[in-house]
């Protein structure tokens, strides 16, 4: 533990070495983007690009829609996946394998392929709902499913579902009460961590909104890259700051609890 033999010192050197390399890899592109975003005015560093972004009504419009899609995705996801994961833990372990297989499918099927088959399926009668925002949200729910489901399942694993349910039953609670008043509050950290990951996915997702022709952040940014130079840099920094804030909130809320968190997709 407290040894200062040469061997341990060597290990510490390498630990620092890899850590510093990781930090550089992580921060250099961000620093470069930030510097770039400050160059909107010739010869001086300024926040002009940021002013432009925040004064751009299109940015506000697209971004608010992305936030709305994100929130809807989280609500639908929680409503579908919490009862499913709970029932499987409590009563239907037989369904664990098929359900987990399905929830992991979006990992296996490349997002672009999935999006096209989704759009194709729902763009011809009798399933002509391609213009409904519901399809967009359903697509987001599927794309974020691997993260949402496994976050919820991890949360349920950490609490004693059986005992909590039986305690609820012995006090005369029905299933609805047990699920929403007992189970849900006990896994809120897990749900929040799943929620923020879903949110990050929705904000960064490009193709679904692009092909359904719905207002969203990522398509707007792609469009802007072709038009302008400095504003997209400012937007990249803003979107990064937002992701960071979301992760920070997860960390803050999840402090002390030992729940795993998984990363998002691309």
């Amino acid at each position, binding site marked *: 533990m407290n040894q200062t033999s040469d061997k341990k010192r060597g290990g510490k050197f390498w630990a620092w070495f890899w850590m510093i390399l990781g930090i550089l890899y992580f921060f250099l592109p961000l620093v470069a983007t930030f510097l770039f975003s400050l160059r909107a005015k010739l010869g001086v560093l300024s926040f002009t690009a940021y002013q432009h972004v925040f004064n751009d009504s299109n940015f506000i419009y697209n971004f608010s829609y992305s936030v709305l899609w994100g929130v809807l995705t989280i609500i639908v996801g929680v409503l579908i996946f919490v009862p499913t994961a709970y029932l499987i833990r409590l009563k239907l372990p037989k369904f664990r394998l098929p359900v987990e297989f399905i929830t992991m499918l979006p990992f296996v099927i*490349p997002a672009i*392929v999935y999006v096209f088959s989704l759009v194709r399926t729902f763009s011809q009668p009798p399933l002509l709902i391609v213009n409904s925002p519901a399809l967009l949200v359903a697509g987001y729910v599927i794309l974020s499913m691997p993260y949402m489901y496994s976050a919820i399942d991890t949360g349920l694993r950490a609490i004693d579902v059986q005992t909590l349910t039986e305690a609820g*039953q012995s006090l005369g609670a029905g299933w609805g009460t047990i699920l929403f008043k007992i189970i849900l509050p006990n896994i809120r950290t897990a749900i929040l961590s799943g929620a923020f990951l879903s949110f990050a996915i929705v904000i960064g997702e490009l193709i679904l909104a692009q092909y359904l022709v719905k207002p969203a952040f990522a398509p707007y940014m792609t469009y802007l890259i072709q038009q302008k130079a400095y504003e997209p840099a400012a937007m990249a920094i803003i979107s990064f700051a937002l992701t960071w804030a979301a992760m920070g909130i997860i960390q803050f809320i999840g402090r002390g609890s030992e729940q795993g968190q998984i990363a998002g997709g*691309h």
Partner: protein
Amino acid sequence: MTVQNVVEQGAPQARPASRKLSWAWLGLTPFFIFTFLFLLYPASTLGVRSFQDSRTHAFTFKYIVQLLHDPYLLGSYWISIKISVITALGGGLFGFLLAYSAIRGGLPKFMRSSLMTFCGVASNFAGVPLAFAFIALLSPSGELTKVLIALGFNPYHHGFTLYTFWGLSIVYMYFQFPLMVLIITPAIDGLRREWVEAAENLGASSFQYWRYVAFPILLPAILGAVVLLFGNSFGAFATAQALTGGQINLVTIVVGSQLRGDILSDPGLGYALALGMVVIMAFAIIARALLQQRTERWLR
């Protein structure tokens, strides 16, 4: 009895398990209906459309045949596999070393939680913003390029460009290694300190400890993680699209251009290409399952 009834009142009493089970599965119907409608059914049309002429809807093998004979299309699979293998192994190795350094390297405690937050952010920081960040860093007029030129070394005079294979690999690494850190951390946490001590106590050097104990114990987790990283990069589209504007002939980009529906494209071929991707992913996952079976006999 409706689902609502079961969920709301289905009296929670002590009954024989078999009777409870007969109704409880109804609670899973929303999940199955939802995933069938929005995932399983659309995905299954992939299989059908790969064998269907885009215009006549007649059954055909022509897309599969075309796929297997067109060096351009086969090449696109090869490039995607190559970049996925390289970034999965590279990102896997670097991510592992980082995670191990943070957890067991004797670094200050806050380093670990900072690393986890970094990785949570970075693994979600992909697509357009990521491509843009690397353009700002490493394009011919990027900030790092400028610094390197000022130091007398212009990478663009030494065969490097951001917009080709190796450039894209460097960009992909940005979300690959953080994902590895996040996935492998629980496994490294699971390495118990007593195992090192028991091994040392029995005379093992630290190399022997790694060779006989730590590596075999971590192997299933590492394999699983690397396959996940492979899939993560194999299906990536937005980053490459934004960075190279479709210059690199990755299979996702080819699929995208075929499905987009412009004049030169053929959706049927796009679906066949996509089916091929799913087959490759399936192979990766089966290979991983077989390897894991061999490597984790000792697991519960």
